[in-house]
């Protein structure tokens, strides 16, 4: 029982990190129906920027602020340069463009920061508590609280602000949204910025939790975000959180109770089964009414 509870706690923490990555990825999909394969690389790149700042003795929160600004800027630039010109093109074109951006970021990061896995110094609390033999770390609490706070903030942002109303209008009918006077380009840009900023938060939590930053975390991140998004329901914000948590628990319990060697296999088998039973993901039905 202790082992089970432990696996659930650890899985939930890992899942929350996936969820924050998946939600940024899913917002873009929800808005434009476009799979941003560079999302994970943006998250990797901006996390490296935070690490570089910390290495230059910039105080941690300052470094995170710089990373956040850099992430927003990168997200918006990528949208402006690589995706916007292709918005009305055939669906494949921006996807290829996204893979291209992913490669450019990955190689640039490798040239600048090298291929080695780097530790991530952080002032985030590293202590741990024991409750009836189950270990809970301060970092896990930080991760769960951050994810919950962001989930609430996004819910409010999308359903109770004029920004969110405009986003949902664009999602519903982009040409009409433009006709009623919504600055579609500016809004799309803001979604990339928010998505990249959430990616950075996810990246910093990931780096602090696993004490590592490395170039290929972008690709792994994209795969995890994609899996979580598909599990939860692509395009759905609530689904991203559910999918991220489900992915974390699956990996944790799959490794714990079936076999650690088949961790990824278990994940993908479950993904396939979910898609067979519910082709739109666990929350897919709601996506029509969600942003």
């Amino acid at each position, binding site marked *: 029982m202790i082992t089970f509870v432990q696996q659930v706690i650890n899985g939930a923490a890992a899942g929350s990190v996936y969820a924050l990555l998946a939600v940024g990825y899913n917002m873009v999909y929800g808005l434009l129906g476009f799979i941003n394969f560079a999302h994970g690389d943006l998250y990797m790149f901006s996390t490296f920027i935070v690490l570089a700042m910390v290495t230059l003795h910039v105080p941690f929160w300052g470094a995170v602020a710089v990373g956040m600004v850099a992430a927003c800027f990168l997200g918006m630039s990528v949208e402006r340069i690589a995706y916007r010109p292709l918005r009305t093109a055939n669906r494949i074109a921006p996807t290829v463009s996204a893979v291209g951006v992913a490669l450019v970021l990955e190689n640039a990061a490798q040239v600048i920061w090298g291929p080695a896995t780097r530790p991530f110094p952080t002032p985030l609390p590293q202590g741990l508590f024991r409750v009836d033999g189950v270990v809970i770390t301060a970092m896990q609490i930080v991760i769960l609280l951050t994810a919950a706070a962001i989930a609430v903030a996004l819910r409010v942002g999308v359903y109770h602000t*004029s920004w969110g*109303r405009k986003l949902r209008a664009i999602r*519903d*009918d982009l040409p009409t949204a*433009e006709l*009623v*006077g919504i600055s579609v380009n500016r809004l799309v840009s803001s979604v990339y910025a928010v998505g990249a900023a959430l990616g950075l938060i996810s990246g910093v939590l990931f780096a602090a939790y696993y004490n590592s930053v490395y170039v290929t975390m972008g690709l792994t991140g994209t795969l995890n975000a994609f899996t979580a998004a598909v599990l939860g329901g692509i395009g759905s914000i609530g689904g991203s959180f559910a999918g991220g948590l489900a992915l974390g628990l699956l990996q944790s319990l799959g490794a714990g109770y079936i076999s650690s060697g088949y961790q990824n296999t278990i994940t993908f088998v479950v993904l396939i089964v979910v898609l067979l039973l519910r082709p739109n993901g666990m929350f897919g039905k709601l996506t029509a009414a969600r942003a």
Partner: protein
Amino acid sequence: MASSDSLLEVRNISVYYGSFRALEDVSYTVGPGSVVCLLGGNASGKSSSMKAIFGTVPLRTGSIRFEGQRIDGWTTAKRVAAGIAAVPEGRRVFANLSVRENLELGACTLRDGRAVRTYLDAVFDQFPQLRERQGQMAGSMSGGEQQMLAFGRALMSRPKLICMDEPSMGMSPALVSRNFKLIKSIRERGTAVFVVEQNARAALKIADYAYVLRTGSVMLRGPAEQVATDPQMQAAYLGHTPLAATVPPAAH
């Protein structure tokens, strides 16, 4: 005709899609508070005219002025903020947003939140059905109600000019006559209306001035009653059927 007191002045515009010519050297003028209709069949350039006014297609030549200012380089949002509102073709409401949210989006270029509330009340007073259903998803309403919502949404920005794209398309005769009554009432409040229509007979009844397009060029123009009786027009559009029985041509 390019009088200095015109509200909208479209001068000598051409629009191409690749090598396909949609509009060639076309000019329109809409005076303040007037109703101007733009008639024409399929592929005559009606929709492109609408898009040109809102800036969603690039102009190859020509200029567009609104209240004397050149707006052809402006973004759509800036044009809307300047006082041009759209009632798009096919009652395009935001189906997954509530009625109230749809109306609020109509005022998204306004900065003053209190004004938005006042305007919302005014629209609700004009369309009490919308007030009753303000929390309902727009997509779950009937076609006629959605059309009403699209009108209300356009009114929310208190525009000086409302551009309507085929308001009678796919509507029952009863709704068509309701829509045209509505256009009249809008005009009575001093708002100019630019209506793009295939239903020439109904449109000419309420318009002050009319333009008739054919394959991208203005074939005929003049005061509405003059155009209605023009022999060319009689032959091409109005046919010999009695006025009341006119049904719009099949939707494209």
